[in-house]
Structures are given as structure tokens and as C-alpha cells.
């Protein structure tokens, strides 16, 4: 398993030449982080962000189309909901393993399960958001002569924004976290330095903590940014 991890920094730290901090394998050595930022942590962080963005974007596009269908044709909603639910139930490690045999040791092997997991939460939230528009609002829209399409674009979709954004927040944060596990199979993202640190005899503590901390930080920052975006997109829900 260790054999998969070739990229990114020294796998086995050279305790002999390091600082006291490293020699004693302390939990956090700032000097190590400084020295290994450029060739280990930063590239892994960027990979992690790229993977998350691509996965959430693709997941949202698919979920939105499915939700449109499930919203427009009510009979499609139960089967679509059930399908996304089943995908969500599959254990990630198992799914990664199966996919390795099909798509090989490529990034896409991580990306496919991650996309599949976003579908459940995004699909549910988009459909629920679209359905949550109050009956009196829909009646006045119809009575004023909005067409079906105008009612969707001008009323239902904007009013579903809070629910859609809430779904995006959860999908993004969970993608960031599950993507870490993907590095168990493929060297990609912040999971790589974490598994590297775990793979050495005595656990490389400062590397483990630095990479793990970055995952947590990334999830928090993503959540804050999305909640700010949500506020900007829904000025009406800030009132009162």
C-alpha cells in the first residue's frame, strides 16, 4: 500500500538531520511546515480544491437536471430519490475498490463516487426547495398571467435558492472530507500526506497534523464562503 505513495515530500523523515522538534517527533513543528509547504502541502491542497470544485460542479449539474425532471413530472420523484439514496448508502471504501478494477488508479476513480454522493443531498434539496413555494404565491403568479416557464424562472427557482445553497454547503463539505479517503487508493489531494504520515513506523506527527488541519480548515473556509454567497443571493431572507 505504501508503494502507491511516491509523490510529495520525504516519506520517511530524516530524524538525524532535523530540528529538535522533528527529532523528538513533536505534534507540530512550524519549521517543517515552512520547508515542506511548497513541494508537499500546497500542491496537495490545490489538488484537493480542484477535485472538490470539479466534483461539486458535475454533481450539481446532474442533480439539477434530475431535480427538474422530478419536479416537473411528479411520478419520477420517488424513483429518482430512491436511486440517489441507494448511491449514498454505498460505503466509500467499497466503491473506490470496485472502481479501481474498472477505471484503474486514476483520479476519476475517486471522482465518480464523490459525484455520486453529492447527488443525494443536492437532488433532495433542490426538489424540496422548488416545492416549498407557498400556494398563495403560486396562485397570484398564475392569476397575474405568468406562464409556466416564467413562474419557474422568476418565482420557484429564486425561492428555492436558500434550500439549494444549503444543499451545496453540505455537498461541498462532505466532498472535501470523503476526498481525503480517496488518497488511500490514489495519490491525490490532502489525503496523500495524511496516509504518508500514518505509513511510517512511528507516525510522522507534524505532517499528519498539518495535512489533517488543512482539510479541516478547507472545509470551514468553504462553508463560510458558501454561506456568504447564500446571503448575497437571498437578500430577502435577511430581513426582519
Amino acid at each position, binding site marked *: 500500500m505504501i508503494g502507491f505513495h511516491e509523490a510529495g515530500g520525504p516519506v520517511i523523515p530524516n530524524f538525524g538531520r532535523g530540528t529538535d522538534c522533528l527529532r523528538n517527533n513533536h505534534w507540530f513543528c512550524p519549521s517543517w511546515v515552512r520547508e515542506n509547504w511548497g513541494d508537499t502541502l500546497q500542491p496537495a491542497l490545490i489538488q484537493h480544491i480542484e477535485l472538490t470544485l470539479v466534483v461539486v460542479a458535475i454533481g450539481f449539474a446532474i442533480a439539477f437536471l434530475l431535480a427538474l425532471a422530478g419536479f416537473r413530472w411528479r411520478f419520477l420523484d420517488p424513483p429518482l430519490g430512491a436511486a440517489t439514496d441507494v448511491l449514498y448508502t454505498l460505503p466509500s471504501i467499497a466503491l473506490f475498490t470496485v472502481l479501481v478494477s474498472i477505471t484503474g488508479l486514476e483520479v476519476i476513480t475517486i471522482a465518480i463516487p464523490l459525484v455520486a454522493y453529492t447527488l443525494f443531498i443536492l437532488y433532495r434539496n433542490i426538489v424540496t426547495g422548488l416545492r416549498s413555494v*407557498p400556494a*398563495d*404565491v*403560486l*396562485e*397570484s*403568479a*398564475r*392569476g*397575474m*398571467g*405568468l*406562464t409556466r416557464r*416564467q413562474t419557474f424562472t*422568476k*418565482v420557484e427557482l*429564486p*425561492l428555492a*435558492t436558500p434550500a439549494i445553497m444549503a444543499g451545496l454547503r453540505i455537498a461541498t463539505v462532505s466532498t472535501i472530507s470523503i476526498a481525503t479517503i480517496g488518497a488511500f487508493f490514489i495519490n491525490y489531494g490532502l489525503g496523500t500526506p495524511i496516509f504518508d504520515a500514518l505509513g511510517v513506523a512511528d507516525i510522522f506527527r507534524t505532517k499528519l497534523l498539518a495535512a489533517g488541519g488543512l482539510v479541516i480548515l478547507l472545509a470551514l473556509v468553504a462553508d463560510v464562503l458558501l454561506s456568504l454567497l447564500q446571503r448575497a443571493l*437571498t*437578500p*430577502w431572507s435577511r*430581513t*426582519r
Partner: protein
Amino acid sequence: MATEAAELVFDEATKVYPGREGAAVDHLSLTVPAGEICVLVGPSGGGKTTALKLVNRLIPLTSGYIRIDGRQIGDYDVTELRRSIGYVIQQVGLFPHMTVEANIGTVPKLLGRPRSWIKERSAELLELVGLDPSYAKRFPAQLSGGERQRVGLARALAANPPLMLMDEPFGAIDPIVRARLQDEFLRLQREIRKTVVFVTHDIDEAIKIGDRIAILREGGKLAQYDTPQQILEHPVDDFVADFVGRDRALKALALRTLGELELSPATEDGLPRLPADTSLRDALALLIAERRDALVVVSADGAPLGVVKREDLLK
């Protein structure tokens, strides 16, 4: 459709819901003259709201005709028809994600009016419905119930429709604010002179608002269509008499003022004095309270116009 006011005709209009016993609206025929308020009133199950929604085709007619200025509603494109009819509902149905101004501008925007026109029109309408222009940038969640209904009215008026449909517009508002909205709506109507169909279950509101009242009984049958005065003084049957209430004589008195009576020459010796625009009902209440048999009617500046006896009020 003309932009002023339109004549509305129900001609044997009937709605039967499939799978349901009996009609919701049963061969309804009545004419609302241009610029008048017709109130549809009756018990629940009387089909008043159904009748209203037949007009803008939210509910399709089963048989019969409805004509606006002589043209059948089925001949209009349904979208065009709805955009040319103002529609106000009890829960208002303002778009929560749009400002007051954007709400008011909904139909004008669909009709392709420029932004500057909408801005101006919305300011004008806010003033008309008695709201400060600063309300333009607020969201519905920041308004009280009464304010929301004013915005709902402004929104319905935005494209200057010749016909307004109002479905229990003041039904969810507390009595004090409701009375004020009714008064303001009547003042507004004197300015704008729209043809209005107004649904309520409250006979007092019907009497106050309506130029004509259509009383519908269960099964959507028209029981009587007449002026408030006629309905109160000459109900056609027991159903109508019951519906308008035992106090219908008093309600009828509330519709007339002292100024409408013939007065006998003023011979005042300490009689109570009331202005000419006092309703007969209030005048009678005063005579009862003060245990008097006559009062002096005075003009707005207090000059005596003549004397009215108690029995004159009751004629």
C-alpha cells in the same frame, strides 16, 4: 380590452366539477356595469370564489359564457387575459424574494415596460394606496398584514386593468385595519372607477363596499342581485332575509344620511343637533340614547337646516 373600465357579463355561466354532485356555479347570469363594484356574497359552498376564478380562467367554465366588454373570455389568449385583469387574493401572494417595487412592477415588466416607467408607476401607486414611497425597497417580510394587502392592491392596479377581481382581500386583516382599508378602497375607487368583482362572506362588508350585491346560495345559485338598499328593504325570499340578518332594517338605515330626508322647518328648543352627513342609524341611536323624539339637522358649518322626527327616520 379598453384601459378604462369594462362591462362584465355572466351569461348562464356554469361550473360543474367532475365527480362531484351538483354544480359549483349554476347558470349564473348577471351584468356588472362598467365602473361598478359587484360583491359576490353568500355562505360557504355558494360558489363565490369559483365564480370569480371563472373570469380569469383560473377555473375553466363548464358551460355558458362570460364576456368582458362584449368579448368572450375564451377568445382571449389566457396569459393576455390574466395580465389585463387585476387579481387580489386574501393571502396576498406577494413574491417574498422581490422588493415592493419589483412586486408592483411584475405585470408591467412582463408587458415590456421600461424600468423607469415601472419606478415611477410604483411610486404613484404606493401613494395611491396610502404607503410612503420609502416602502419601494422593502421586502414583503418587513410589512404588516395591512401593508401587504395595500401592496397587493397596488400590484393588481399596476398595469391599469379595466377589471379587478378581489377574493376576500380584507378577510385576514384585523377589524380595525379592515374598516380603514375598506374606507380607503372606496375612496380609491371613486378616483379610478374600475369594474370590480369582490368576494366576501361578510354581509356587512358587502353592504359597505358594493354598488350591487349578488347573493349566492348553496349550489352556486343566484338568490338575488340588487343594490344594497333593495336587498335590505326587499329581500326576495327567506334565504336572503336570513342571510342579511334580523337587523336588516338597521343596516338599511346605515346606508342613508339625514341630508337625504325631507326636513320640517327649524323650530329648535334645545333639541340635539347632528350634521347632515350622519347616517340614519347613528341618528336613531342618538335619539334612543337621549330619549328624544326629534333632532335638528345642521350643515357642515353648523347652520340649522331643519328638524327630523323619530318616525321620519323609520319611514
